[in-house]
């Protein structure tokens, strides 16, 4: 059975984006050949991407028209199967996307059972909050960027129940990011 994995880059003060949606300039601090390689390996090992509405719409707009450097990543993003969890969307038009309007937990469980590669969630803070609370993540991959932003949106929302994680590995990037992989332990 495959895993549901969260992947995010966060600041030292716990933000996955700045105050406004898509304020992600701090990603540039950690970006480089090693992180690119990591991302490509990850995408290569992905059966399906799972998104909430906001991240989906932003990603779709960006990757459909992406030019230049990140060609390989763009190809993965445009071609991989994508699941969008949203009650408010009525249709999704990014290549290879499926809309799930309800029973998210069940649908994800079904996908895990039939995939041999893992499912990934990028961004999608609101959806992730639900997935965290329902213990659906099997693994958390967090890249801690060496920056304190001061203001932004928290990746881990306040009020979460206490949880211990089990460190799988820690990888320091030459750019100063540290990629921490954890297994969720309450499974």
């Amino acid at each position, binding site marked *: 059975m495959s895993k549901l994995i969260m992947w995010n880059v966060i600041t030292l003060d716990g933000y996955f984006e700045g105050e406004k949606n898509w304020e992600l300039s*701090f990603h540039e601090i950690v970006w480089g050949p090693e992180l690119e390689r990591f991302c490509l390996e990850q995408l290569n090992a992905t059966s399906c991407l799972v998104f909430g509405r906001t991240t989906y719409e932003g990603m779709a707009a960006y990757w459909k028209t992406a030019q230049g450097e990140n060609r390989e990543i763009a190809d993965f993003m445009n071609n991989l199967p994508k699941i969008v969890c949203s009650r408010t969307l009525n249709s999704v038009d990014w290549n290879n996307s499926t809309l799930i309007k309800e029973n998210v937990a069940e649908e994800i469980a079904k996908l895990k059972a039939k995939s041999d590669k893992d499912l990934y969630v990028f961004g999608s803070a609101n959806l992730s909050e639900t997935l965290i609370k329902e213990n659906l993540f099997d693994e958390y991959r967090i890249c801690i960027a060496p920056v*304190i932003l001061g203001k932004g949106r928290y990746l881990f929302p306040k009020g*979460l129940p206490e949880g211990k*994680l*089990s460190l799988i590995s820690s990888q320091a990037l030459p750019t*100063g990011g540290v990629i*921490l992989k*954890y297994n969720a332990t309450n499974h």
Partner: protein
Amino acid sequence: MRKLIAGINMTLDGFCDHTAGIADEELHQHYTELLRNSGAIIYGRITYQLMESYWPALVKNPTGDKSMDDFAVAIDNIPKIVFSKTLKKLEWKSATLATLDIKEEVCELKENPGKDILVGSRSLIVALMNLNLIDECQLCVHPVVIGNGLPLFQNINDRIVFKLLKTKTFGSGAVVHYYAPGDK
């Protein structure tokens, strides 16, 4: 000139409550070594009182747990400088009250000869980061999410970018990130 090193524990979701991390043998040994290699540690009132309420007693009555007892001795020995507007007298022999404001006191400490200076209080770390006086930050990220508590990096005025020096991983899954100030 002496370095000012900030050393503090943090949960993955950014809280620094002292009970939040995994305080095992390895962690105690790590901090004992840090204390032994340092010339002084500066505290705010809250952390000072927290430390004072627990560790001196262990020096008198050791627990038998070597890592805890060694830490107790190390923290008892290291000269402590406490910033407080309300405390008038300190009971702990190795502790003194700061007389100047934080910027002046820290600058003076740095100019005196000696081993590096530690700062372990959240409020002072934030204040000193805003003053650009911290030379190294050793942040121990624990593999726990606690949902609520005292956020570590709050009220930081400007964006701060660090340079990662190295990391150190413990058996518990806690990872120490060693940072120096970077370019903006």
